[in-house]
């Protein structure tokens, strides 16, 4: 399996683009990251846009969907249901804080680790304090 790919599902195109810029800097060019964000010029997410983004991901790796909030999660679920099994069976929706989760797990993905470890890195981001107590 190749490196996991990341689909960033956000209501805001700017938020997704900015996060990809930031995470790519940390993880390097080997991790495919693609936005599925905004609705035209407005805020919003769309299941069909997510499906299109998933289709751009390399065929030999896992696809991880990260989302910002609320209905973005429902649209991720719908996107999985709309995808053909060949894509759906290697796709996961990740429950993590968006910025910290994507950065932590894209770094792990760049090291070629399994998708279980990549997802675990994202989920652990809920528990990592940024300021020492």
């Amino acid at each position, binding site marked *: 399996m190749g490196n996991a790919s990341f689909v960033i599902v956000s209501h805001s195109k700017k938020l997704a683009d900015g996060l990809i810029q930031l995470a790519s800097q940390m993880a390097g060019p080997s991790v495919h990251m693609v936005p599925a964000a905004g609705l035209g010029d407005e805020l919003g*997410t*769309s299941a069909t846009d997510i499906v299109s983004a998933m289709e751009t991901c390399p065929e030999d790796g896992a696809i991880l969907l990260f989302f910002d909030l609320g*209905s973005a999660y429902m*649209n991720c679920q719908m996107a999985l249901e709309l995808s053909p099994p060949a894509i759906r069976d290697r796709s996961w929706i990740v429950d993590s804080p968006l910025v910290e989760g994507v950065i932590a797990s894209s770094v792990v993905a760049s090291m070629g680790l399994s998708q279980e470890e990549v997802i675990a890195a994202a989920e652990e981001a809920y528990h990592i304090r940024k300021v020492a107590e």
Partner: protein
Amino acid sequence: MIGVGMNLEQFANFIHDYAQRLEALKDTLNELDNRIGDGDHGTNMARGFHTAQQQLQAKSPEDLGAACNVVAMALLGSVGGASGPLYGTIFMKLGGALKNLAQADIEQLIEGLQAAKTGIIERGKAQFGDKTMLDVWEPTLEYVTAHSCDEELLQAVMVARIAALETRDRVAKKGRAAYLGPRSAGTCDPGSVSSGLFFEVLISAWRGGVETIPWETLVL
């Protein structure tokens, strides 16, 4: 007596009329959503069903299942907020139940609507009373399942309207309104209002004879 049902033309009229009514009610739905949500329910729904109506005209599907799928995909690509996946799910489930049918009788329609309701529950994880569209779908479906003869169907419109208005006093448990806690009481749930309108227009397309009500004055 001709049985109550729905053919492709009636379905197209339903989508057309619902799109028009949503456009007319857009500001009211936005105002409700401004009070307890993010203020775009009217704009999102009007845009979504306008797109759905256009796609339906452009693609002229040959059976009800295909027509529902056209509407579902249009909504998923154009609504933006939570209504996109929720109303998209409604039409996908309806489309599954009406697959390959050029015309559906009342039992088939109700079966499709039941599947749609189950889909909403699975998608949104809401329960009756959470101040979501399910607060309208649950009692309306319960009513039409028990009273599906022609005359009684008109009464279902009233059931849906009352259910939508009854969300006013509830405290929201889902979506952005839930962040407001008790402060969400006092405003009708916009998704319940658009669902009340959905049943009004749907039943009007099934059998006609449904009088419209001034939603904008009742819900604000």
